[in-house]
């Protein structure tokens, strides 16, 4: 044997020689890591910044304040404040008149243009007001009306005066009216009445997320009701009860694979099975919830199983050892201990479901539905789908509304995730 061990002194000398180089490598790796984390954080910040920057104005819009003459005869011809009566009334006209007083349009064309300044929901607004407060009848009251989305865009400066008239959506006449109103201090920039309480609407200035929001809640509710018990039950069965055999293995493989199936495929399945075979209606939160439930099921099962597995076997042994039956062991010990993990998984699954779009598109929750759904079997839409649809609309104002909707959605998602993290932290046990 030519060379044996180095003697320790020589070894130390060799080690010392290369130490500088090795230390340099060390610092480099750390630097790369820090850079990567920084970059990812920047992405996130940029994303949020963009959304917020675009979305915050979406919560606001321009209003014009008019002195409306609440003439009972004209607004409520039948005098019983019924919808029917109010609809047959002349509320729109009264508002228009109030406007005309201020801007004095000349001729039919100008009047027509002037009418468009105010959003088309003005009669509904009057109706609502008198219903709430019949005392208004007979008074002349200042009322705020939303401006049309083009006017809004103009006021925000998206539509520029300098643009040649034929290329912009607001013509010179209208600009003149706006200037007049502005001069009288009638135009104001306020928190939007519509974004949170309105529903889908072709008029961007009146569009809101209430319908989609309620739709989302209902869908989520169905999803939770189905996915949580099923997921937990499955997890318990597979982890605690089932013997390890071909069948359980098959089920496991199935679950793992379901987790990998693209969400759009779940939509296809929902379309084919629930709607195609079971004959359920399209667009309803029930079907949406069921599809999302099947989609989040693997998430819940997998995280529940992990949570169950994290319960140390010693606890089971302890219970079995003093004569608890298998199910007593499970229900008295395993489930309570695994619950935080299961809940965390479920919340994360729900958050996923809340943000999911593609499968819901498949089952038709993309339909244009004005009414706010009252139950899980009323047609409706959900927030992300609403966002998707708005993102596709051409009107400038929808960009802001979309962003605003995104902000609402994100707020929810982040608070759900934060809650999950909180739950995990709070209930986390160390054995």
């Amino acid at each position: 044997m030519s060379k044996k061990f180095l003697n320790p002194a020589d070894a130390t000398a060799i080690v010392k020689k290369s130490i500088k180089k090795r230390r340099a490598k060390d610092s480099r790796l750390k630097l790369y890591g820090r850079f990567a984390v920084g970059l990812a954080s920047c992405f996130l910040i940029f994303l949020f910044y963009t959304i917020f920057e675009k979305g915050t104005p979406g919560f606001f819009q321009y209003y014009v304040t008019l002195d409306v003459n609440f003439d009972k005869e004209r607004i409520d011809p039948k005098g019983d404040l019924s919808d029917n009566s109010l609809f047959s009334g002349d509320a729109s006209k009264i508002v228009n008149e109030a406007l005309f007083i201020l801007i004095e349009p000349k001729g039919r064309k100008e009047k027509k243009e002037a009418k468009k300044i105010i959003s088309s929901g003005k009669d509904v607004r009057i109706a609502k007001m008198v219903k709430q407060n019949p005392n208004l009848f007979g008074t002349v009251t200042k009322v705020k009306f939303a401006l049309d989305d083009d006017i809004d865009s103009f006021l925000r400066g998206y539509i520029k005066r300098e643009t040649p008239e034929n290329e912009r959506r607001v013509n010179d006449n209208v600009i003149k009216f706006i200037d007049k109103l502005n001069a009288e201090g009638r135009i104001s920039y306020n928190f939007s009445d519509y974004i949170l309480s309105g529903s889908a609407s072709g008029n961007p200035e009146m569009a809101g997320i209430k319908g989609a929001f309620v739709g989302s809640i209902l869908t989520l509710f169905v999803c939770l009701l189905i996915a949580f018990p099923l997921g937990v039950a499955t997890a318990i069965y597979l982890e605690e009860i089932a013997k390890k055999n071909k069948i359980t293995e098959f089920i496991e493989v199935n679950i793992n694979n379901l987790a990998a199936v693209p969400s759009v495929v779940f939509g296809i399945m929902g379309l084919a099975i629930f709607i195609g075979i079971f004959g359920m209606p399209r667009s309803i939160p029930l079907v949406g919830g069921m599809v999302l439930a099947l989609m989040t099921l693997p998430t819940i099962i997998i995280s529940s199983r992990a949570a169950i597995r994290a319960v140390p076997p010693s606890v089971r042994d302890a219970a079995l050892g003093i004569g608890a039956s298998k199910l007593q062991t499970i229900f008295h010990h395993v489930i309570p201990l695994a619950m935080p993990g299961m809940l965390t998984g479920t919340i994360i699954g729900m958050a996923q479901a809340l943000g999911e779009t593609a499968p819901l598109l498949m089952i038709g929750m993309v339909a244009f539905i004005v009414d706010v759904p009252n139950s899980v079997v009323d047609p409706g839409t959900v927030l992300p789908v609403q966002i998707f649809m708005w993102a596709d609309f051409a009107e400038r104002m929808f960009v802001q509304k979309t962003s605003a909707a995104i902000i609402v959605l994100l707020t929810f998602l982040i608070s759900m995730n934060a809650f999950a993290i909180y739950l995990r932290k709070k209930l986390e046990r160390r054995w």
Partner: protein
Amino acid sequence: MNLKNDELTKSINTVGDVFVKDARIKARNVNVFYAEKKAIDEVTIDIGNKEVISFIGPSGCGKSTFLRCFNRMNDTIDICRVEGSITLDEENIYDKNVDVVPLRARIGMVFQKPNPFPKSIFDNVAYGPRIHGLADNKSHLENIVEMSLKRAGLWNEVNDRLISPGTGLSGGQQQRLCIARAIAVSPEVILMDEPCSALDPIATAKIEELIHELGNDYSIVIVTHSMQQAARVSKRTAYFHLGKLIEVGKTKDIFTRPQHNQTEAYISGKIG
């Protein structure tokens, strides 16, 4: 096999006093398989009334496996199969219509790692009586808990914090809590699988002390890696090797003059 007497259909290869006069548990020609693998091979032994017996042997020789036959904890392992018969007071515990739940209440078990439930100390001890419906009312239950903790030598250390979690105790205290929990369902036999191997020497000594005392009231079977421990706590010792029960006898005989040379080799630290 005729369980009524000790005559065996098969011969016993074990050296020493396999049988005792006042046996509570009688294991006869027990074989245990994990799938195809035989982990326990034709073991026959008696566990006497109120005796402390220890099982020793090299790692993997099947001590734990055999111990867990006594309260059918092996049922929880899918691939585990038990043959032969084990009787508790002449009743075959592997009989088809024996319910393991009351069986396990009669034969308590203490595990290697202290495993208190992550509940309060009180609830830990009260759990068994509760699920078995042993207490008539609350004060009865409290009584049972107090008695059990006292008997486990833990009462003085915890009586002022019964509602604090059992997992907050020190390792040794936890193990005594587990013993209290086992006692609370009034078992007749207590099985202990290396009850001190996760504890430091002082906690170990306390548990051993406790085992001594409990030996007056219960039959105790203790599996241990530590020959010293077997020597200290038990009156009888059984030596296992490769799934076979090589020798059983008085502990002092096993430690001073074992009869089988495999026992000799193990006891004196030679390769078996």
